[in-house]
């Protein structure tokens, strides 16, 4: 039952849940998270280190915000439909048999 509901919600999510407001919400939240992570020396080190490791350039953050800001509703819907598909998923549930 839960599995059925979950997949039903997932099916509708890409089409119905992604709109201009929800994309802007994610952009706001991403920016807040990124800036709050930079408040400590440890946070700055992780931030720069991650950019160097994943993108080969610790300066990548200068382009990064622009990339996030340029993401459109259409692009996000396309990515959602590509990855959040029932065929790509594994359903795992852990039960207490009693």
């Amino acid at each position, binding site marked *: 039952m839960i599995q059925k509901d979950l997949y039903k919600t997932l099916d509708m999510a890409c089409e119905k849940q992604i709109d201009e407001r929800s994309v802007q*919400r994610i952009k*706001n939240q991403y920016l*807040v998270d990124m800036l*709050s992570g930079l408040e*400590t020396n440890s946070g700055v080190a992780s931030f720069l280190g991650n950019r160097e490791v994943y993108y080969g350039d610790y300066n990548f953050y200068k382009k990064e915000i622009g990339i996030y800001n340029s993401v459109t509703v259409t692009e996000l819907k396309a990515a959602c439909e590509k990855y959040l598909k029932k065929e790509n998923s594994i359903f795992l549930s852990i039960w207490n048999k009693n």
Partner: protein
Amino acid sequence: MKYILLTFIICANLFASNYLDENLKKYKWGDLEVVWLEDSTFPTYDITVYFNDGALSESSHGTTQLMFDELTSGTTRYSRKEILDVLEFYGASYGANVTHEYSTFSLSGLVKDIEPSLKMVCHLFKSTTYPIKEINKTKARARTGLKNLVNNHGALASRIFRELSLKETPYSNPVGGSLSTLNKISAKDLHTRLLEFNQKIKKKIYIKAPAGTKGIKNIIAKDCGWDGKKATVSVELPKVKKKSSKKDKIYFVSVPNANQAQIRIGTYLNSEQSGKDYTLNELASRYIGGGFTSVLMQELRVKRGLTYSAGAYASSQSSYGRVGINTFTKNETIVETLQVIKEVIEKQTKDIPVESFSYLKNFLKGTYLFGLESSSAFIKNLLFFDHIGRDYDEIYAFPKEVDSVTIDQAKNKIAELFDWSTQTKLVLGDKKLIKVLKKAGYSVEVVKYNKFL
């Protein structure tokens, strides 16, 4: 030339300013005190409202906490879903902290979105209606959480220990309330409490944001209606007197399915003790149980394998403080662990090696500064200093203060804070341990955990 240069260096050091000197501004917005840390490093803001009242003055325990927690339950204009949608949209973080002595409400987010976020928070303070349906759901969740505490032995031990160790003071009850007190709290009680906080209780605003961030002053005055003119009430904090001797009595709490015993040992600081020796208290408690190299960790875990972790603390509020040791062990080693803790404390009152004392000082100076890195932590520190009447300059004096502490002072402080005869001792675990503890010579008083839920 040499002397001119030397004079210049000395003068430069004398007049060198620090981060606070450069960035801290104090304002009066009407009669409302404002502390503003002007920092343009990031386009973000942190606002914390200090209320000079906490859980101590409430008629039913848990009312103040629930009043803050349910600020988003619904207003005259918006449902809970709509409120959360607005605040989440702007990426705003918010939350309250209630202590017995004072309460705070904090909001943070992006400067570009400060106006709609802050206006929403002001709307919540003015217009939350505490819909009965929402409040009942929250109370039901809180009751379930309390009943489930029996499965979280560490949290249950700490909850019961607070009540028992502070029972001679007015600060013993948990600020979140209990099963019986939560039942008594109605939506009307929450609304009445909110009105008191909004209209009567004295407030102070702490801000960290770029200089000149627009809108805050106007929104606080017009939308929140806080100008400090009428809201002047401060809670009266009763003084806490000297504690009595506990001898070798142990409170024992029996819980089902316990293969480990939780240990809590500690006491309270009276008003006189809590208002002085902040650095010395910190140093003494960290030496006993702050980090992996502390004496308790070394003696209990490294040398004897009696536990995975052990910690000690000494914290001060305005009118009382708490000192304590937390650890746990296997059922089989409960007596040995208690004995080792007692011996470790006694030993430190007589002998502290110079080398480990020096390590501790460096550790303390380093961790203190790292603890002030985030803006919210820094603001909370300023707020707490104001609450307990400490000067902001003490932040910068801390390393020197630490360096000035002598080994004899630390030994005497450990003896004063952790004196075995004044500590309340609690063990939570399997009931078979009652017999074991009695056999070891302890006087055991059995308490039922459900009386503390």
